[in-house]
Structure formats: C-alpha cells, structure tokens
C-alpha cells in the first residue's frame, strides 16, 4: 500500500525568490505544493543518489559559474602567498 500521509514543509525565502517559485508553478498551471512535489523532490532525490556515489550535483547556472571560476587566471592573494610558502616548506 502506498503511504499517502502528508506533512508540512516550511521554508524561509526572500520575496523575490518566493515570487519566482510562484511564477514557475503558474507556468505549469499548478500550485506551489505540486511544484515542489514535481520539480524539487526529483532534484533532491537525484542529489542524494549522486552523493552516495560522491558525485556533486549543480544546477545549470551553478555549473556555468563553477566552470568560469575554473577558467579564471590564477592570481595569488597575500594570504594565499603566505600559505604557499608554508606548502613549499619555506615558512
């Protein structure tokens, strides 16, 4: 038998984020609870599954920001230069 018991999820969001979630739900012509069930829960399931295999999941926008950070030229800050000296056995 399928467990159909419902529980409540409360989340604190800034007004802009709340508005965008509501807008996304409206685009699918569904309510917020259905949006969370249909969109958020499968994403969370995928993240949990991938974490078991030590695979980190990022959204498309996060992947792009991470990729840009990987491509950025390396310029050491003062504190990184100090750590660098310790790493090289000079301090």
């Amino acid at each position, binding site marked *: 038998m399928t467990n159909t018991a419902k529980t409540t999820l409360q989340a604190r969001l800034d007004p802009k984020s709340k508005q965008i979630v509501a807008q996304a739900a409206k685009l699918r012509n569904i309510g917020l609870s259905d949006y969370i069930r249909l969109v958020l829960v499968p994403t969370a399931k995928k993240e949990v599954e*991938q974490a078991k*295999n*030590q*695979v*980190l*999941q*990022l*959204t*498309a*926008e*996060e*992947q*792009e*920001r*991470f*990729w840009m*950070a*990987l491509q*950025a*030229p*390396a*310029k*050491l*800050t003062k*504190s*990184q*230069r100090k*750590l*660098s000296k*310790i*790493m*090289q*056995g*000079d*301090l």
Partner: protein
Amino acid sequence: MKPIQWPNGFTIEQLEKRHKRSVFCSGLDLVDNWLKKKARQAQGKKLSVTRVLLNEHDTIVGFYTLAMGQVNFDELPHEMIRKLPGTLLPIVNLAWLGVEINYQGKGFGERLLAQALADCHHTGQLMPFVAVLLDCATEKAKSFYQRYDFQELPGHPMKLMLPWNLLHSMMDS
C-alpha cells in the same frame, strides 16, 4: 620540493590502528566522531585517506581527510564542454580537518591545511582533477578557510573551492 616544517619530533602519518584516536578532542563532536568512528573504516574501503599529525609522544595533534569525487557538468552549454572528455569532472574533497583543542590557535590548522593542499597537488600530478573542494563542517571552519580567500562553490555555501590552476600557482610561485 622541501617538506612542510613541523616542530621537532612531530610527524605526519597515514591513519593506522595503533594511533590513539579515542582521546582526540577538537571541541567539535562531529569532527571527533569522524576520526574516532569512521575515518579508518572509510580508508579501509578506499573511499578516503586520513593523515594524522603526531607529537613527540605519538599523540594525535590534528588530522585531515581527503577523498576523490566528481562534479556533474551535464548542463553546461555545448560550446563550453565540447573540449571536455566527459561531463563528470574529477575533484578532490578536503572533507575533514581537525586540531586537538590544546593545540588550537598555534598555527597547526594552517600547517595541516598547507600539508593537505600540498598532498592534493602531488596527487594532481599523477591523477588530474579540476579543483579542491573544502567541506566546512561549521561556520567557524568556513571562516578559517576564508582567511585564504577561497571562493564559495556556487550553490553550496558550506563548500569552498580552490581551482587546480590556483593550487598549481601556490606550489609553483
């Protein structure tokens, strides 16, 4: 390359059964429980490696744990990933780092971080990866790592990142 400088009599070793883990106390149960209960098990399963800093009496002064992982890049725009060998890119996780409470505030955390990153760099010469991710167990740990200007991993506020080219510059400057 010269080894990292430690006080006389201090040594870095891979975690072994003979190391006295049960008396280690960093002041944070989460960190202590990892070392006492899970680190050797994970090492035995080849999921991670833990190295311990021992003082002249063979007492654990601090430790860190490194693990390999992957980041899923399957949603990057095609023009960005066309030169990549695949969409799962390797990373190294600095998963845990702890210092015994009586040794905190004396620079051991900084040296353990330096040793962990030097180990990552050495590994990266043989097994390439794109970045080191630093897992922050607490806000205090995050503040410690942020002293070195490491950026947050997008979408993961409790993970900081050190791209390979920055790590390489730190060992090559």
